[in-house]
Structures are given as structure tokens and as C-alpha cells.
């Protein structure tokens, strides 16, 4: 409780010094932002170190395996050894700390080494080829399901108890409970085989072969056609969660005092729903959204494999199956770092959106 010193009834009550808004903003944002970024950088370092040891400590030295492979092709040991080392961009005889530093150095130059199973192909080029498709498919899935979830969830909370609410809650609960690859399989089997809605063979890959990339209608149409199944899977799998979370968040917000006050002030319903209900109800969801963005890059390995969609997840699987250690390591690193970066961005955005976080624990009593 604040202690207000006794005074005459005419002098204004002193308040804590509240600085003008732009000064405050700069101060707190800097302090908070710096903390977030620093934490992020430390985590990135931890993740890269972890990946380094992950591959090194795997059973079976990948370099030796490669040397064996090359020697089987008739290449003499010395040359095979040099080639293998070149592929891995590390010298297994050197002490671990030296290897580690070399690894870090290469990373800073964006050099992730060369693929083992596809000699001559740089890992970073492979990633660049497949990453956009994952971003596109999983990203659109995320955005669509978020938008759907938020609108439907608010509506359901507003008309709570109606038939609309009950039916959608049931559907959302069911969708939420079923794993995403199960939905993918169901789509494939029921849609493709039983109902013959589409030809499965035709829909492999991201785009029909033979169409030149470009902003032509033909190309875009083909891309969308091929992305339909994976994106539908992502939407169906995650929309349930968004709906249910938004609904419960909205219900909690509707019970708050300031909503009652807003109604008593005679504000129009639309204004209350948007600026008072939705803006507050969405705060917890926006954090989740920001964090989900990080996991977009990891995509879904299983879904991409089922639909044969050329994304990063499927490439990871292929690298694993063919023991392509450098590619494995490179993809894993990219996925992990993007998660860290997006978490950082999520924290920063939350600070910007919710003045209570940004301006610190500021209330006086």
C-alpha cells in the first residue's frame, strides 16, 4: 500500500516520477531487449556445441566409414583419407578443441561442409533448395490455422453454450487429439484411394515437373495444387488447439472487470469485442504463435515423407537413412538455430505488445 503523507486538501498528490513515454520506451526496451538477445546468443552457442559433440560421439567414425567406401572403389588410402577429411571439413587426428574451433570458424563463414552421399554438393546449397518449401507449406498451415482458430474461438466464447459452440468444440477436441501424421494418412487413404479425389502419384513433389519456375499462373497453380494436401494436414492438425485455447482465453477475458466497466460505459459491442476482449485474449496466443514459428523450419518430417514433399524434414530423413553425416549435422543445426532465433523474436514481440512486460513490474502497490 502506498503511504501518502498527510497534507492540505488543496495540493496535488505527488506521484512517482513518470517520465515521458518515449524515454520510458527507450530505457526499458533496451534493457529488456538486450537481455533477450544475450540469452539467445548464449543458447545458439550452446546448440552449436551440442551438435558438434552429437556427431563426434556417434558410434562409428563417419570419416573411417567414408574412407572404407572410397577404398572399396579402388582409391588408395592416403588419397581416400584426404578426400574424406575434405568432405568433413575436419581432421579426426587433431585434438578435439582444434576441431571445435575449426568447426565454429566454418560456421561463421556459413560453410557447413559437403554432402557425403552427393559428393561435390555443398550442404548449405542443399538446405537452400529445400528450406523454402518447408517454410511455405508449414508457414501457411500455421498462419491459416491461427487465423481460423482465433476467429472461431472468439465466436464460440461469445456464443457460449449454443449449438455452434458445442459442435465446434467437439470437432476441435477430436482434431486436437489426433496426431498429424494420422490425419495425413487418413487424407491419403480416404481421399486418394477410396474416394479417388486425387491421384496420389501425381501429387508428389512440390510442383509438376517441366514447369519453369516464375510468377506465372501455371507455376503458381501447380505449386498450390501440390501444397494442398500437406497444408490441409497442418491446418487440420493444429486448428483444434488454437480454437480451444482462444476460446478459453476469451472466456477468461470476458469475466474480467474492465469488460463490465466497458459495457457500463455504453461502448458499442464491436469496440468491446475488438479492443477489449480480443486484444487481451490474444496475448497468450501470440506468444504461442511466435514460438510455433520457430518450429516451422523443423517442419514435420513424417508428413513431408508421407506426401513426398521436398522439404527440409524429408531431406533430414534421407540424410539419416543414407548416413550422410554432414548433411544431417547441417540440417539439424539450421533447425535448432531457427528455433532459438524465433524464441528470441517471440520474447521481443511480447515485450512490445504487452506494456506490463515491457515497462517492468511497474505498479506501485
Amino acid at each position: 500500500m502506498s503511504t501518502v503523507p498527510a497534507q492540505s486538501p488543496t495540493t496535488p498528490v505527488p506521484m512517482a516520477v513518470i517520465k515521458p513515454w518515449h524515454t520510458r520506451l527507450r530505457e526499458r526496451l533496451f534493457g529488456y531487449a538486450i537481455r533477450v538477445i544475450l540469452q539467445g546468443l548464449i543458447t545458439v552457442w550452446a546448440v552449436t556445441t551440442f551438435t558438434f559433440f552429437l556427431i563426434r560421439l556417434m558410434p562409428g567414425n563417419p570419416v573411417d566409414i567414408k574412407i572404407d567406401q572410397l577404398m572399396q572403389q579402388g582409391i588408395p588410402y592416403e588419397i581416400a583419407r584426404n578426400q574424406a577429411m575434405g568432405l568433413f571439413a575436419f581432421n579426426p587426428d587433431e585434438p578435439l578443441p582444434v576441431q571445435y574451433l575449426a568447426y565454429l570458424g566454418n560456421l561463421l563463414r556459413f560453410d557447413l561442409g559437403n554432402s557425403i552421399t552427393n559428393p561435390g554438393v555443398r550442404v548449405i546449397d542443399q538446405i537452400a533448395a529445400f528450406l523454402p518449401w518447408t517454410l511455405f507449406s508449414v508457414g501457411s498451415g500455421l498462419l491459416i490455422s491461427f487465423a481460423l482458430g482465433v476467429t472461431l474461438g472468439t465466436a464460440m466464447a461469445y456464443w457460449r453454450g449454443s449449438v455452434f459452440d458445442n459442435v465446434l468444440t467437439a470437432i476441435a477436441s477430436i482434431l486436437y487429439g489426433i496426431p498429424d501424421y494420422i490425419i495425413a494418412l487418413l487424407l491419403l487413404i480416404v481421399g486418394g484411394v477410396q474416394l479417388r479425389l486425387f491421384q496420389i502419384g501425381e501429387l508428389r513433389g512440390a510442383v509438376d515437373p517441366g514447369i519453369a519456375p516464375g510468377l506465372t499462373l501455371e507455376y503458381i497453380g501447380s505449386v498450390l495444387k501440390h501444397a494442398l494436401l500437406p497444408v490441409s494436414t497442418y491446418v487440420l492438425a493444429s486448428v483444434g488447439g488454437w480454437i480451444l485455447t482462444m476460446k478459453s482465453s476469451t472466456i477468461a477475458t470476458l469475466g474480467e472487470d474492465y469488460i463490465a466497466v466497458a459495457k457500463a460505459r455504453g461502448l458499442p459491442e464491436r469496440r468491446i469485442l475488438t479492443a477489449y476482449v480480443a486484444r487481451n485474449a490474444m496475448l497468450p496466443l501470440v506468444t504461442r504463435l511466435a514460438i510455433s514459428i520457430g518450429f516451422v523450419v523443423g517442419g514435420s518430417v513424417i508428413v513431408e515423407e508421407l506426401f513426398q514433399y521436398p522439404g527440409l524434414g524429408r531431406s533430414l530423413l534421407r540424410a539419416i537413412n543414407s548416413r550422410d553425416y554432414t548433411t544431417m549435422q547441417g540440417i539439424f543445426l539450421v533447425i535448432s538455430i531457427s528455433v532459438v532465433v524465433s524464441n528470441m523474436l517471440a520474447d521481443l514481440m511480447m515485450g512490445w505488445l504487452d506494456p506490463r512486460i515491457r515497462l517492468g513490474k511497474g505498479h506501485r502497490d
Partner: protein
Amino acid sequence: MGLDAVASPTGLVIGFVLGLIPLLVGWRYRQWKWGVIGWLVCLFSSFGCGLIGGLPVAVLATSLVISYAFATREDPYTSQASLDEVTFDETWQEYLLRQMAALGHGVRTSARMLARNKVGFIGFAGVMFFVLMSAFGPLFIEYEGEANFSRRQPGASSLFQPPSAEFPLGLDWQGRSVLSHIVYGGRTLILTSIQAGLIATVIAVALGSLAALLGGFVDQAISFLGNFVLTIPQFPLLLVLASLISFNSSLGLALLFAALNWPALMRAVRAQALSLRKRDYVEAAVALDLGLGHVIMREVFPNMVSYIAVNFIFSVRSAMYALVGLVVLGIVPLSEPDWGVMIFMGRQQGALFNPAAASMLLSPIIAIAVFQLSLVLFARSLEEIFNPRLRSGV
């Protein structure tokens, strides 16, 4: 012995012995009806699942018996006793009895609320259905492990067959009854998932409590480790590790999964323990000089149990997701019978394009979907039961 003795006489014996505990306790406290019921339930569950089924059921049954016995006892804290007469000292036997009674009471309340909560009941029924099917199904259905070429229909190009009267779920790529594979195929999955969830929960609770109660460096170290593990994308890491390490037992897989899954619950347990430390009744207990042990066991822990139970179910669900995923992708060595293996083999054998083979793929898919869904519905209704604020209505 415990895991593999499904629907076997050994289980009967175990159940008989374990069931004596609630029976004897019931005899001691003159709760005959519940003593006998407890004994029968132990028998039944041990018969089905061996030791792993019998032990928890024995504990729960005993707690039920004790809770009924306690209902008639006078509780010194609410009677007209004056404050000098009440002592907070309790022998460990009395403490144990009181906790068992509380557990039994909790079970009864939950059962009552579950019966009222339709959605939760459906979830619970779904889970029970598959558990019972995996435990007792083998009594009624033979497992068909060997290929059965004699069942090929004249003129058919493969051994697949759609559902018929003789084979309710059709035949798979080796002419074996899909139904038998469904009945036998859930056991390993369910058991491994439960193991994984259990280990993850134990780790999370232990680390979370330690972090909250010891604070300082321990807390920072555990929190950093937890945040780090959370940042790493779980499934890709599982993929990499599972492909590089060969597992000969399901326990290894369970451990691997638990090692990646504990941070989520750990953070929640830690937050809960920290907040409970500051709650009024804890501060009151500390002010009354009741000692830290008392505080932990009687004030903090009982409030977290419900929370932990719900998270345990979610862990089991995640574990199953990961396990089936690994099998469907072919990363993990395949051993039949297994729902995931059915999906994997189905894809390999082209069941996707063969209308007659739909059942081989659809059956495990639907089984997994329904089981996962039931877990989720059950867990969410438990959340509502334990947290009255989530309940809708007046």
C-alpha cells in the same frame, strides 16, 4: 515377468497375493464389502497385466478401503477440541493412514465427477477399452505370425483381403488376420509409452522440486538445462539419436524419449513449487514451526499431485506419438506385432493403392487415433475436475 505375463496364470497368483492387502486392511477396519471388492479387482488386473497391473491397483484399492474406514473417524481438527488438546505430532503409521485415506477420497471424488463429465468418461472408456483389449484380447484371439498362403483368393494378385464375415478386419499382405494384429499390436506401444511417460514424469518432478526448494546455483543449472533441451526440436533429435543408437529393448527407447520430454513438466513443477512456497498456508505452517519436511509432504506435495497426474497422461501421449512416428518412418527396428509396423509394412507393400488392403492401413490408424484422442479427452477432463475454475456452467 511383469510385462510379459499377459492373461496368464502367474498373473492370477500375483493378483491373489496382492489382493490380500486390501482384503486384510478391510478386515482390520471392518470394511468387508470394499475389502473383497479390492481383492477381486487386484485379481482381475494382475491376471491381465501381471505385476505392473496389480501393484498400482492394490495401492488404490487399499486407499479406497481406508478412506471408507476414515469416514467414520473423528477428525481432531474439526471437532470441538480446544487448541491445547490438538497436537501436530503424528506417528508415521497415522500419517500413512491419513494420506491413504486422502488418496482414496480423491479417487472416489474423481470417479464421481468423471461419471458426470461425459467427455471425460468417453476418454476414460476409450483408454480402458484398448488397455483391456491388449490385456485380455489374447485370451480370445490367436496371434497369426506366420504367413498364410493358403488363404489366397483364386485370381487375386496379392494376399490382401477386405473385411468379411470370417475375417472382420480383413487380411494383411501375408494373408494374416488384421484383427489379431490389432489385438496384439497395442501392447508394446502402450507399455513403452507408459514407461516413457513415467520416467519423464519422475525426472521432471524430482528436478523441478529440487530446483524450487534448493534454489541458487542448483536452480539456475537445472533451469538452463531444461530451457536448452526445450529449444532443441524434439522429433528431429529423436530421429538422429534413434537412427544412430541401436536399441534392443523398448526400455532404451523409453529412456531416450524421457530424456527429451522432461523439461516441460519440470518447469511447471518448479513454478508450482515456488508459488506454493509463498502461499498463505505454507507460510502459516512455517510460522507454526512445523518443519520443512512437514511443509513439503503435507502442504506442497498434495497440491501438485493432480497437476502431475494430468501431465503424466500428456507425456504418455507424446511418447506414443514419437514412437509410432519412428516406426512408421522405419528408423526403429521393427518387431511385430505392432500397430506402427502395420502402417510401415502397409506403405511398403503398396497397401496405399490397393482398395482391398485399406483395412490393413486403416485399422492401426484408427486404433492409434482413437487411443490418442481418448488420452487427450481424459486428461482434459481431469484438468477440469482438479481445477474447478475450468468447469463451465453455474
